[in-house]
């Protein structure tokens, strides 16, 4: 949270500085990250450096900052320890059509979400810029930001009526369903993203929830799959549409994604797509580590690693509390 609080003024300063002097982003001039660093007020240069993506020269801005890229590493394969921004090597996973040299640089307000005892949700601020080697085209660039939680199989059950009683009857397993998924975009997905590109990158929520081998055990697996999306939407874990990406001066973009209070632990992947006429020009991936910390971490680890000790501790706490209350009330009565 501290990182985000410090970052916001830096970015606002960078945005404010734009109309007055800087044509830089429209040309092949300094990378926007450097721009942000220059434009930031002297009071807050540190956070801007910390989270800035790798610059064009490939020099990591700060050796031990949490948001620093390791050159050549790819997001999903990156070691899970800590949250680090990992920049895709140029050209990989980023099909560039017709020699269009547009790339996207992006960063997150924080790469680590700590679930403490009082955790009640948090917000991730995603921002970045379009980097060009030639003057910008006329049209506004389209940007899609997705954040997805750890994905895994989930069991769906359906109630049916039999003998006048509603009970679970059919059930199936949906092989792939992320624990959290949010999409933010500059416009409606079906307008800014072609169907093929959507399929290739699985951007739409509908493509994230997949049933591979479910066809055998139920008649209509599709309705079970839709039920997953519906139930997860109700819980606030699947978010689409209302969140938007703002684009400033055809170059800078920013959005924020709210993580609800009921998220699970794991590595969350943030993807930033740069699009033109439905095609993905560039893709940037980073990892947000969501971790339990402190007491939460300790209790969870104990319950998994030493369940007997955990159970005995739970009993001891229960008996101590029962005895304590009994004694306290006895003392009160006297």
């Amino acid at each position: 949270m501290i990182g985000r609080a410090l970052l916001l003024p830096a970015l606002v300063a960078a945005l404010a500085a734009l109309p007055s002097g800087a044509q830089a982003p429209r040309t092949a001039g300094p990378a926007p990250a450097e721009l942000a660093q220059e434009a930031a007020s002297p009071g807050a240069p540190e956070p801007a450096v910390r989270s800035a993506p790798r610059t064009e020269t490939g020099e990591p801005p700060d050796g031990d900052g949490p948001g620093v890229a390791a050159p050549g590493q790819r997001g999903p394969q990156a070691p899970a320890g800590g949250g680090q921004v990992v920049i895709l090597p140029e050209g990989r996973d980023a099909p560039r059509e017709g020699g269009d040299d547009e790339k996207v640089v992006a960063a997150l307000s924080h790469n680590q979400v700590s679930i403490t005892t009082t955790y009640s949700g948090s917000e991730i601020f995603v921002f970045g810029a379009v980097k060009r080697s030639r003057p910008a085209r006329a049209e506004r660039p389209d940007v899609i930001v997705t954040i997805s939680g750890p994905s895994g199989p989930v069991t769906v059950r359906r109630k049916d009526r039999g003998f006048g009683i509603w009970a679970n009857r059919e059930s199936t397993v949906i092989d792939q369903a992320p624990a959290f998924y949010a999409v933010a975009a500059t416009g409606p997905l079906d307008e800014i993203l072609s169907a093929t590109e959507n399929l290739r990158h699985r951007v739409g929520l509908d493509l994230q929830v997949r049933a591979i081998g479910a066809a055998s055990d139920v008649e209509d697996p599709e309705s079970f799959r839709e039920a997953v999306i519906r139930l997860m939407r109700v819980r606030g874990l699947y978010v689409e549409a209302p969140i938007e990406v703002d684009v400033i001066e055809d170059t800078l973009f920013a959005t924020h994604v709210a993580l609800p209070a009921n998220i699970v632990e794991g590595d969350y992947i943030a993807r930033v797509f740069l699009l033109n006429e439905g095609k993905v020009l560039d893709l940037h991936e980073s990892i947000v580590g969501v971790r339990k910390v402190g007491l939460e971490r300790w209790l969870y680890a104990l319950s998994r690693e030493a369940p007997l000790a955990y159970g005995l501790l739970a009993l001891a706490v229960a008996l101590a509390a029962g005895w304590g209350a009994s004694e306290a009330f006895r003392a009160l009565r006297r």
Partner: protein
Amino acid sequence: MLIYLPIAEVSVDALLILGLGGLIGVLSGLFGVGGGFLMTPLLMLIGIPPAVAVATGANQICASSFSGALAHWRRGTLDTRMGLILLAGGIAGSFLGVWVFELLGRLGQVELMVSLTYVLFLGVVGALMFVESLRALIRARTGAAPRIPKRKRTLAHKLPLKMRFPVSHLYISVIPPAAIGALVGFLSAIMGVGGGFIMVPAMIYLLGMPTSVVVGTSLFQIMFVTGVTTLLHATQTFTVDMMLALLLLVGGVVGAQIGAQLGMKLRAEQLRILLALIVLAVCLKIALDLAIEPSELYSLAPASAP
């Protein structure tokens, strides 16, 4: 004030949980029931996963029944000897219950079986208790027949292996209490509750124990049953959420003390008619859930569950 629960992996309002624990605690101290039959549905209602609700409920009930049992023990309204015999039967019964539960699990439809057992037992026990206590209340109101101190000679007086229970003023065979304990242990393994709502009327009507002693003795037995359940869940299903349990039991133990105090002010018939009404209400709710078409037919569960 929101608190994140490490095992349930949800964020809940701490005050709501404290209040819930307190409410169950009052019932526990007042009636000698663990409150599991109320706790589990209420926890699920506020968004706790069912498995965590059952396991953590057991942990909380263990604490509140210990608190209540202590209060009764100090007042001399706990028949330890009777409690131990009930417990011996209860342990045997719960082993059998776990075995049957696994069998049902392999056949599927555990959830349905649990609901039907709830409806059946809550309905029968609640209705019997309601009718009996209403009759007693009317008798007391009209003043026609003051309670006859002489007790009916039940089956418990005829069977062999007789034992003296000084606290309950009984000289009966140990077979009926052991059988009741076994039945309760069996049901609690299947239904995931302490079984107080069955044990309390059984002790009053089948064994002829005085109501004042029944509550403490029931709590004594529940304390052990839920303790074992907590350990089993912690080591086998990993669903005991200590943070949730702590919140519930802080409310619960305080509530149990208040309940025990209240219990001394209310008359026995009034106590029983109140418990009967609560039992019937829960029974009706579960029956309606089975009969009315739910608004959402689908439900999600972790893929590892059968």
